[in-house]
């Protein structure tokens, strides 16, 4: 029980407490949200409640790509339009949204749900790596694109996966490292610049 709200009616103080458990919501914000909901039309409040229940009940991990989905296999894995010989490996489900927004990729995905971080004690077993290797076994995949973040952990994960995948004899690629559009050479760090030089191409 959050101190100070004990005098509110039981359902009210209970909702305040539930809000308080969310990230970034302090006791004051929790109370404000609760009283806002109390003043809301009933159908709106009900639709919010149903939406919360729906994500918990209907969202599962796609048995192929491990993305969050309400159908199994997910819309991307189930689509007949997509190129099934390519798998793009990403850290988080949100990365798929970013890649889909480019409209430049028509293959399948695989979500690791994290990244190898030895200092945090997150190793390969905590990620969906076994599931990825299982997808490669039937030989239908020709290329794996490693699209982990260009951070120390992301690169370590990429190198680790590359070594695991190399026995399959597939083409393993990673996203190019280089300068962002609208960026400034002067402020670019040495690692990015060095890789941008390595990856330069003929115009």
């Amino acid at each position, binding site marked *: 029980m959050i101190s100070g709200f004990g005098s509110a009616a039981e359902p009210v103080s209970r909702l305040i407490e539930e809000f308080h458990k969310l990230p970034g919501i302090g006791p004051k914000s929790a109370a404000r949200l609760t009283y806002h909901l109390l003043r809301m039309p009933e159908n709106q409040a009900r639709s919010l409640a149903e939406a919360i229940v729906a994500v918990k009940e209907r969202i599962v991990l796609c048995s192929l790509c491990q993305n969050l989905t309400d159908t199994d296999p997910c819309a991307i894995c189930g689509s007949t339009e997509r190129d099934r010989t390519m798998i793009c490996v990403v850290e988080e489900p949100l990365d798929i949204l970013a890649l889909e927004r480019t409209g430049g990729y028509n293959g399948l995905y695989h979500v690791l749900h994290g990244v190898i971080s*030895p200092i*945090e*004690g997150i*190793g*390969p077993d905590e990620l969906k790596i076994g599931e990825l290797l299982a997808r490669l076994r039937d030989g239908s995949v020709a290329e794996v694109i490693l699209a982990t973040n260009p951070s*120390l952990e992301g690169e370590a994960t990429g190198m680790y996966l590359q070594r695991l995948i190399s026995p399959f004899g597939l083409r393993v690629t990673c996203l190019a490292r280089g300068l962002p559009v609208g960026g400034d050479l002067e402020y670019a760090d040495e690692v990015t610049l060095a890789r941008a030089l390595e990856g330069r191409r003929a115009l």
Partner: protein
Amino acid sequence: MTAPKIYTTEAIVLKHANFGEADRMLTLYTPNMGKLRAVVRGARRSKSKLGGHVEPVTHCSLVLARGRNLDTVTQSQTIESFLSIRNDLWLTARALYLIELADAFTPEHAENYPVYKLLLDALHGLAKVRREEAASWMQHLMLLRYFELQLLGHVGYQPQLRDCINCRSPIQPVENFFSPSGGGILCPKCAHTEPVVRPISVNALKVMRLLQRGDYATASRLRLVPELSRELERTIQGYVRYLLEREIKATGFLDRLRREGM
């Protein structure tokens, strides 16, 4: 006198964690202020001018603004990015091991220049050797052991390797015993005085003394047989585990790489 609002320092970036919408919280090791935490605003955006310079395992020069709780990085410039470490999975894992040790044994805001120097030199040492050469592989292992023993000395846990920690008599060149709880060597007669001891060979003890004395030049030329190398690793890491009362997490990943023969 109040402390200036803006200050400049060199630092080794130990680790980072996501913070807020697009920020990162860094753990830094500095030469004159010890371990610090600082925020980099917007570091996760791909156009961040600061983010690329403050990845973990980077030696950089920073300008920081003092905040009420946390200081904020306002300018960053890489001094050494240790690209050769970044490009190699083994080296990355080893560098993270060194960093986790340094992080675990040091408190925030306590100046300890020798630790800074040791970590910086060790990272340069890792970056220099080439993985294909078997000789440099061995050098690496010696570098890790050297780092462990020197670090323990700099933070006040130097193990006693000359005299028996119980009877104070000089250690003889026979099989003796290492006691993590006693923080040193017990002679065969005193081995029963501590609850947990592990036997230590004459050669392992000699190498430990050499590394503790700081003679890395000699130590790096040693070619240890694998059993001796493993004995040293187990003895020192057993002591580290006892002191920290936990596992060093990065060893889990190193063991796995070794197991999978990568």
